[in-house]
């Protein structure tokens, strides 16, 4: 009895050979037309599909009727789909790595930004007019306020650095010399840091 797997593989190999030969003939014809092989070779039309045809007729998946129904058939199908997705992923990556794709992507982004820029300007103008009419702060004003607070935070940090650089403060004055008549010494600024989950871990000695 003939092995159906072998017949199937032969048929697939024959079909693949035909496709490869056709692609080869096409490339030669294009090269001749482009100046007897002087021009750089045209892209190989079969290159994109070769990675799929290299998977074989069905990868590791048996055709129905090619043998007993193995309970692992689903796992084999999963493997085939994984291989198929991986092959598509490689093919798409090849396509996206080209100059042409990068150029097209850049052009699309450029057009999007041109439209988006005008739309944003128009939306900002109308939005500002609306909040002005309502007496509410505009988006820019809120952002400006946030930035001012951040600047303030930066200044406090600078001050903290300078105070730290002065070294440890001198020991406190004796109890008898109450601070009533003394001008208050500025204390180093300590930032309040709130714990989130657990309490502070005791410090270790170095």
């Amino acid at each position, binding site marked *: *009895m003939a*092995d159906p*797997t072998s017949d199937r593989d032969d048929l697939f190999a024959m079909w693949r050979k035909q496709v490869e030969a056709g692609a080869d003939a096409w490339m030669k014809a294009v090269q001749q037309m482009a100046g007897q092989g002087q021009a750089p070779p045209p892209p190989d039309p079969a290159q994109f599909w070769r990675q799929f045809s290299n998977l074989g007729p069905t990868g590791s998946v048996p055709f129905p009727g*090619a*043998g*007993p*129904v*193995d*309970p*692992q058939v*689903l796992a084999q199908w*999963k493997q085939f*789909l*994984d291989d198929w*997705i*991986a092959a*598509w*992923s490689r093919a*798409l*990556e090849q396509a*996206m*790595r080209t*100059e042409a794709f*990068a*150029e097209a*992507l*850049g*052009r699309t*982004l*450029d057009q999007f*930004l041109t439209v*988006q*820029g005008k739309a*944003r300007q128009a939306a900002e103008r109308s939005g500002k007019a609306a909040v002005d009419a309502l007496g509410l702060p505009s*988006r820019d004003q809120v*952002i400006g306020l*946030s*930035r001012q607070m*951040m600047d303030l*935070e930066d200044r406090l*940090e600078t001050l903290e650095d300078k105070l730290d650089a002065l070294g440890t403060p001198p020991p406190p004055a004796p109890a008898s010399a109450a601070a009533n008549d003394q001008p208050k010494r500025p204390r180093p600024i300590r*930032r309040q*840091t*709130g*714990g*989130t*989950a*657990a*309490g*502070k*871990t005791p*410090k*270790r*000695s*170095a």
Partner: protein
Amino acid sequence: MSAQPPPSDANAWSAWQTEFERTIQRVRNIGELVAESNEPAVAQSPRREVYRKHKARLYRYEGTARYDTPVLFVPNLGISRPTVFDLLPQSSFIGYMAGQGFPFYLLDWGVFGPEDDHLTFADCATRILPRMGRKLLADADADACSVVGYCMGSPLAVSFLGSHPDFPVRNLVNLAGPIDFEDAGLFGCWLDRRHFDVDKLVDTLGQMPAEMVQLGFKLLRPTMDLSTGLNLWWNAWNDRYLEGYKALQKWASEYVPFPGEFFRQWVTDFYQENRLAQGTLRLNGRPVDLESITCPLLVVGAREDNIAPPPGVKALVDLVGSRDKKYMELPGGHISLIAGRSASRDCWPHVASWLGARS
């Protein structure tokens, strides 16, 4: 005829029965997944906030410290939240490192709004990082620390150390952090200055919005969703897989925008001009000299990384002035290098043992 003997009827029946039961379970679990509104709890490792500067937070993770040298972990800024490093108790890089006895600190860059658009790469490397480093040393009562950078966190950390040679760093670890952008994969191709006008983008939008960050990463691997869906269906009968899937999906759906000026500098100085590797990077007037980094160095690349291809990661080994330096290339991609089951087997123990021997 097939070469393999046919399976016995009893075995085949049992296997089909198992498959049938799994399919019932798959349908039930996916139904629950779709109907469920509760978000999975991630980033549950106990921690406390040590310091905050603008949106950035420095956290100290709880754990019994066996080593004297604290670890400052610097992840990527923007793109995604650092929850991926502490997804679930059994798959947490942070939990693992803290459990190994390292006084472990995470720098969480935060989620940026329009008020942060003026924040630059230089500000992060020369203002935020040095301050966080000092606060860490004070909190840990230590005289030096190890720095572990992941992804963009590595060029940030390296730029900080290269511009602050006086900062006391004991060890440096680069996990999948791009350093040489000569061949930076698909992003390098798309962000080429001939095609990508970063100035127009930042001037128009103010920041690099989260939606565009998401689009860029989806485009990087267009078949990812298909593959994820297929794997979900295949493994949906497994409750443990589903738990990890939900946590990972929560993380993967939270994209974070880039501050506009940061993105401009990141694209121009790194992707387009490759200044860090060429030694021409200056940040707020400070030159970044990688040769001034002389501490022990571990560089880990991921073999299938399409975000930070291994050659660009490995480049750091040749650029620093360290004598004790090592490069490892592990299986997996950019994320699976540090998150997931394979990471807990292949990557974390290496990092912990390398650091442990030098801490």
